[in-house]
């Protein structure tokens, strides 16, 4: 781990290179990332705001922010499972800490996230009047105070998500290198998880069904760890009220996940070059 930190110039450079690489011969370059995110968020926002009878002014930003965060999580999880398999050549030919490959991948995803964040700012500007005053989304019980400087809370939130991304990639990467069934399993379930996580739908909807307290239905969201990860970044970005229990859940995942990743690293780090 420490070795990887010392080589931070390496993975920072490589991650940046990966992005430049992807757009080497294209005209508008990295803007493609932003454009594709923008169109997807727009289409999903328009469709689901009608389906769930939501006000576009608050729902479109909601979908946009959620989808940007989801894209980061999706990238980390799917690329994390292949992080060592894809770098087989480098692992077998150049001695460097295997954490380098993980950090390169996470850094690349952070850069993608930064590109996508442009879409959030565009949407924020367009719907600024609707978002800056207190509002309620359809089905909500409490009122949201609206976007203010508290949006900066998204920064520590995202930092925590990134810290989690590293252990996820380390742990899943090691396991997937040994057991090649894991990547396809994860790839096939990740779509399901997308629809189960409140991204294109809103948790308040669960209350609306029963016209009040959603009862057991709330568990659909609460039992999904990814909901909490999305929420600690999304709620501040949209000026929504945020329950502290999201932070507790994410904090617990951080501690347990890192402990598992450390155990895996200690026991199997040296085996990765044999398995790839």
């Amino acid at each position, binding site marked *: 781990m420490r070795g990887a930190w010392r*080589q931070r*110039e*390496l993975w920072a*450079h*490589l991650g940046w*290179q990966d992005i430049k*690489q992807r757009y*080497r011969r294209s005209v508008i370059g990295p803007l493609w990332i932003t454009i594709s995110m923008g169109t997807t968020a727009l289409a999903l926002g328009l469709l689901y705001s009608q389906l769930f009878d939501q006000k576009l002014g608050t729902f479109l930003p909601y979908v946009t922010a959620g989808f940007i965060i989801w894209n980061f999580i999706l990238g980390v999880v799917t690329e994390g499972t292949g992080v060592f398999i894809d770098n087989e*050549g*480098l*692992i*077998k*030919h*150049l*001695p*460097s800490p295997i954490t380098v490959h993980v950090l390169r991948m996470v850094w690349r995803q952070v850069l993608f996230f930064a590109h996508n964040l442009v879409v959030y700012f565009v949407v924020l500007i367009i719907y600024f009047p609707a978002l800056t005053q207190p509002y309620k989304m359809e089905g909500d019980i409490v009122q949201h105070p609206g976007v203010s400087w508290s949006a900066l809370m998204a920064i520590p939130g995202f930092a925590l998500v990134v810290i989690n991304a590293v252990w996820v990639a380390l742990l899943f990467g090691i396991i997937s290198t*040994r*057991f*090649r*069934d*894991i990547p396809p399993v994860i790839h096939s379930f990740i779509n399901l998880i997308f629809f189960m996580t409140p991204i294109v739908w809103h948790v308040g909807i669960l209350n609306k069904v029963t016209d009040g307290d959603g009862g057991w239905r709330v568990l659909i969201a609460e039992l999904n760890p990814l909901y909490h990860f999305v929420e600690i970044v999304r709620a501040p970005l949209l000026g929504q009220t945020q329950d502290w229990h999201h932070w507790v859940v994410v904090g617990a995942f951080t501690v347990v996940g890192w402990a598992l990743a450390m155990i895996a690293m200690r026991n199997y780090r*040296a085996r990765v*070059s*044999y*398995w790839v």
Partner: protein
Amino acid sequence: MVSIDVWNASVDFPIFDAKSRSLKKLALGKVGGKIGSEGRVPIIEALHDINISLRHGDRVGLVGHNGAGKSTLLRLLAGIYEPTRGSSRIVGKVAPVFDLGVGMDPEISGYENIMIRGLFLGMGRKEMEKRVDDIAEFTELGDYLSMPLRTYSTGMRVRLALGVVTSINPEILLLDEGIGAVDAAFLEKARDRLNDLVKRSGILVFASHSDDFLVELCNTAIWMDEGQVKMQGSLREVVTSYKGRDPYEFLSAETLERIGQPRVLSGNGGE
């Protein structure tokens, strides 16, 4: 002090075929109980009981048939594989030149590849920027350095890779065969630089099938056979028993003088 020590080291590769690499088989294997060796993963012993001790100034040639374990040994010495049994201790900055296609991106320019390779070998960005000119001069690639790497010939790639590793002052230099693609003139230049490097600071281990390269670069040799060290000694002795003939026999007097070897092996009784 630069050193490489390897004690009783073995490297075993588990060979997972598509089936045994799955969780299902592992789970079923446990439930099923005594399947014994049938359910186990087959293992290839790539290296077996290796004992090597190298010190400052050693220039070692690795000889042996294909599949004898030369490349695996180099990777063990590079710290890429940790021994599955036994132990190894490598002190010093390692610079390997193995597969020339790896760690180089064909789409980006030579300059950028120099930077990435240098970073991988533990250099900082600023340190590499200082060395770029030196590398450009040594490799003689000139304007080609700003072209994408895919336009390079094999020999040009070798030049680039050698240029990087020799410029960063490594203490342990590990070369696999494949650097044979460069032309004679460049080889001479590279030889001087490599010799200089070894004299200054370290150890060279070089796997090759070419007598000429070995004679130029190495003074001792290790003969690998079936994953074991079959013979270890001076280059002349080892290569003579490996090939069945003296590699120095047909060299020109000039070359012999340069590398300081008599034409005839002492005690061999003449030609």
